[in-house]
């Protein structure tokens, strides 16, 4: 079994890579067969990943070195709690997104569906690849593939505006990519190694100019995908992609790849101690705190539903970055867990926005009066996601925010506690009115019950339940909480007993 599980990370990457090829070969004419490939790949991928959870929690590190690709550096796959946490959530949500996307793409009668599903599968391969990368080179390779594979999805509509946005997207993504390559070259030239190590492998003797150069290159590289201001502007624009892309890639896989990069950077390259001592933590924390507040304020002003959600995403990604930069074990725990809870809540919200659009053609918040009567299930799910993001107990968001706040206090940085609290209020201010408007106001457009296709409503319900479960029993779903604890334990050496 263990021998097989060493292969599991590779197989998990290949599963969707095969689908990425099989989908366009099958083609639009046999679309049910084509969709079968996606579902098959998603289920196989998730199963392979989920199978590794017990072993990894018990201390196993599955993986293999594939082939040497540079002197002393192999293409190396290594499964640790951090990668597994992210991979599990991304691959689980891909299953749901697949079904949702069948409903969405058929409902909206989108063109080029084969290309769409193929590239989506390719993105997932790259995401899982970077989760399981054992060294920086492997990570960067998958990170770059992810950037490029997302481009056809961003320009999907083929409109002039889409191409303009695609161009901006590429400029940001490729700049980020080359910054990472530069950073890894610098690290390799000085240390001769690129392997991630819990607690980091750089040390202060390498000199501040070098360390800051490396930090800034990596912060640029990860900050773009993580939407840390001032690098965020591509993300709201990228909402021009079909909603399943916004939901899975621009709320979960792609943007969290940036956040995950920060986890690797702080926990496995620099190490929290050095990261704090050199002052990079303060720098990053201030940027993240500003991003949280500014993004929340901008979100309030947006009438376009997806744009509002996009700015909300920008803010919440920085929750995670801030949690990492606070460096206190509790805050890291909260940050790691927020990767999951935010994914569950935000994908629910995007799913809802897409269902509303496909079903009624409405995109703006101001048009949603009374829509709760027509689509009560969708809007109820939206409500759960909304209060969850605001930090109301019994939804996952509360748990992660709790630990983020406690961590800020532990570290003696109570200012960041206020940032979290204030932002919670702002979250409520930009999300809850949508729900009240939907249920309390009335409109002649929406009088009788008429939900979107079950292909969309069922995934929405499941992600909503996922978000709730995370709040009620944080360790109940795929042991996410334990994985988060294991990350903190491996990076800082602090273990938690009891949990919630």
């Amino acid at each position, binding site marked *: 079994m263990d021998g097989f599980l060493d292969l599991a990370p590779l197989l998990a990457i290949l599963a969707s890579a095969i689908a990425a090829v099989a989908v366009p070969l099958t083609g639009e004419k046999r679309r049910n067969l084509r969709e079968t490939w996606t579902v098959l790949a998603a289920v196989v991928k998730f199963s392979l990943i989920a199978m590794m959870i017990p072993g990894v929690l018990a201390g196993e590190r599955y993986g293999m070195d594939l*082939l040497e690709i540079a002197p002393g550096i192999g293409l190396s796959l290594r499964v640790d709690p951090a990668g597994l946490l992210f991979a599990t959530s991304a691959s689980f949500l891909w299953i749901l997104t697949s079904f949702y996307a069948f409903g969405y793409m058929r409902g909206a009668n989108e063109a080029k569906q084969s290309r769409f599903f193929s590239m989506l599968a390719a993105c997932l391969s790259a995401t899982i690849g970077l989760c399981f990368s054992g060294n920086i080179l492997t990570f960067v390779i998958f990170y770059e593939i992810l950037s490029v594979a997302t481009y056809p999805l961003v320009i999907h509509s083929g409109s002039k505006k889409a191409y303009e946005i695609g*161009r901006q997207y590429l400029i940001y993504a*490729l700049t980020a990519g080359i*910054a990472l390559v530069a950073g890894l070259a610098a690290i*390799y030239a000085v240390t001769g190694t690129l392997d991630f190590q819990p607690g980091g492998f750089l040390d202060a003797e390498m000199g501040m100019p070098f360390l800051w150069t490396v930090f800034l290159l990596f912060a640029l590289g990860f900050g773009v995908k993580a939407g840390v201001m001032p690098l965020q502007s591509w993300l709201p624009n990228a909402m021009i992609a079909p909603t399943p892309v916004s939901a899975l890639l621009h709320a979960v896989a792609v943007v969290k790849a940036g956040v995950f990069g920060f986890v690797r950077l702080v926990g496995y390259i620099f190490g929290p101690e050095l990261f704090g001592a050199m002052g990079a933590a303060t720098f990053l924390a201030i940027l993240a705190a500003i991003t949280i507040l500014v993004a929340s304020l901008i979100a309030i002003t947006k009438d376009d539903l997806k744009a509002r959600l996009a700015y909300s995403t920008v803010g919440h990604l920085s929750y995670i970055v801030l949690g990492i930069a606070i460096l206190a074990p509790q805050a890291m725990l909260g940050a790691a867990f927020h990767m999951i809870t935010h994914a569950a809540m935000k994908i629910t919200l995007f799913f809802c926005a897409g269902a509303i659009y496909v079903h009624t053609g409405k995109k703006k918040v101001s048009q949603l009066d009374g829509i709760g009567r027509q689509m009560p299930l969708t809007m109820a799910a939206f409500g759960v996601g909304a209060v969850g993001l605001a930090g109301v107990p019994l939804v996952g968001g509360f748990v992660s925010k709790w630990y983020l706040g406690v961590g800020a206090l532990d570290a003696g940085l109570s200012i960041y506690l206020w940032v979290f609290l204030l932002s919670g209020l702002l979250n409520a201010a930009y999300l809850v009115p949508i729900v009240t408007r939907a249920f309390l106001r009335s409109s002649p457009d929406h009088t009788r019950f008429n939900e979107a296709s079950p292909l969309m409503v069922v995934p929405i319900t499941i992600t909503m339940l996922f978000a709730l479960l995370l709040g009620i029993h944080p360790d109940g779903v795929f042991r996410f909480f334990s994985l988060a604890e294991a990350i903190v334990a491996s990076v800082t050496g602090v273990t938690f007993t009891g949990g919630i």
Partner: protein
Amino acid sequence: MSQLPALIPTTLILAGLLSLLVGLRSLRAGHLIALTGTVVSFLVSVIGLLEVTSSGQPIRYALGGWIPPIGIEFVLDHLAAYMTTLVTGIGVLVLIYAPRSIRHESPGKAALTYPSMALLVAGLAGMSITGDLFNLYVFLEIAALAAYALLATGRRGGAFATLRYLLIGAVGGGFYLLGVGFIYFSVGSINMADVAARLPELLESRSVISGAVLMVLGLALKMGLFPLHFWMPDVYTNAPSSSAALIAPIMTKVSAYAIVRLMLDVFPPGFFTEALPIAATIGWMSAAGILFGSIIAIGQQDYRRMLAYSSVGQIAYVGLGIALANPIGLIGGLLHIVNHALMKGLLFLIGGAIQWRTGLVRIPDMVGLGKKMPWTMYAFVIAVLAMVGIPPTAGFFSKVYLMIGAVQADAWVWFAVIVLSSLLSAIYFFRMVEFVFRDVEGAEESADDSATGGVSAEELRGAVAGEVPPSMFIPIAILSAAVILVGVFNFLIVRALLEPAVAPLLGG
């Protein structure tokens, strides 16, 4: 087996001459002879490569039985085997591709083209394996003459561009020859190994220094190193696609290789870096060339001109590798020789395929090609990803090695140039990807803007749809696969061939 090195150029020269004679009567037979000769020399190169890597020893051959250093010596070592395999391999692919393309672009010139191609490859392969400074000049001129012939068969303007190239090429060759003369006068030998053995006592000699500078200057001209690149854009733009696809990938590279040869195996370690600032000069010329080539390429509307300026930038990566003069940087530069040859060859072949199918050469007119020739355009995307340096294509790794080398050499400006240039090349290549995959509604708009002389390209070619024939597509497919495979397995090449080749840098 010791005749093996000699077989590579002689087969090609024979095939070239025979192909010329036979080609006057039967084009098809002439092509077949040139192709067969190239295939044979490619196979011999591969055998030589395997031989050298398994034994770890170079294969030496004394021409005509004259013992070196008096006679001419061929030396097939790791680096030479690497180059000949590349040169003859590209030659095979282009010769497979050429007939259709030539019939379309320069009908009536085919009889001259195939022998010239074989002779060009012969010259370049000869430059790669020769162990003799003067003999290198001879092969350099064989290659140059063949290249002039190939380029001059192009459309109007081709002849003038070629004349200019010829004059500059003659100057470059002249400088090199003059340098060899200086070396001969002061050292008394032109056999590379022999010169290398005698040089250490004569390093202070002014004529040795002048000789080194002249040889490098001549080769730098031939290599098209900025600002000595000015002949390149016109030449590549006006040449027939198949000629450009043969010359652009390999010709400048072999001159770069010759500089590496001089640095590693003729002059003592440190001579190019410490005694004379040759490496640093090459480095700054390269850094400027990378930026210049990439920036000018952005403004080009003509596909081939864009590729030409991109080549000005790309050859400079090899130059940077030479300039870094540390093992990993030089490995990056040498690896980029193969990487860029594959990518640029692929791009020129695709350009020829587009011309064959649609007659288009201007990028704004290429809107909607993704629908017309999807497979060719997928190959184009692979080439673009490689040019920009997206993993796991070949282009990524040479850049990584060069960057590591730059950090180790504390060359932060060059480091920044490499970083920046990836982004610049992304700009001009992705712009084109955007064009070719855009839907045709957009096509009408931009066809109006671009003013193609009142006649839209669609009308010109009667809106033909479909791919190119197999003889053109197979080389494209092979090169696309190679771009990815060389990327994924680049380390095998590095370990087997390049690490032994740069060993003199470590031994210094």
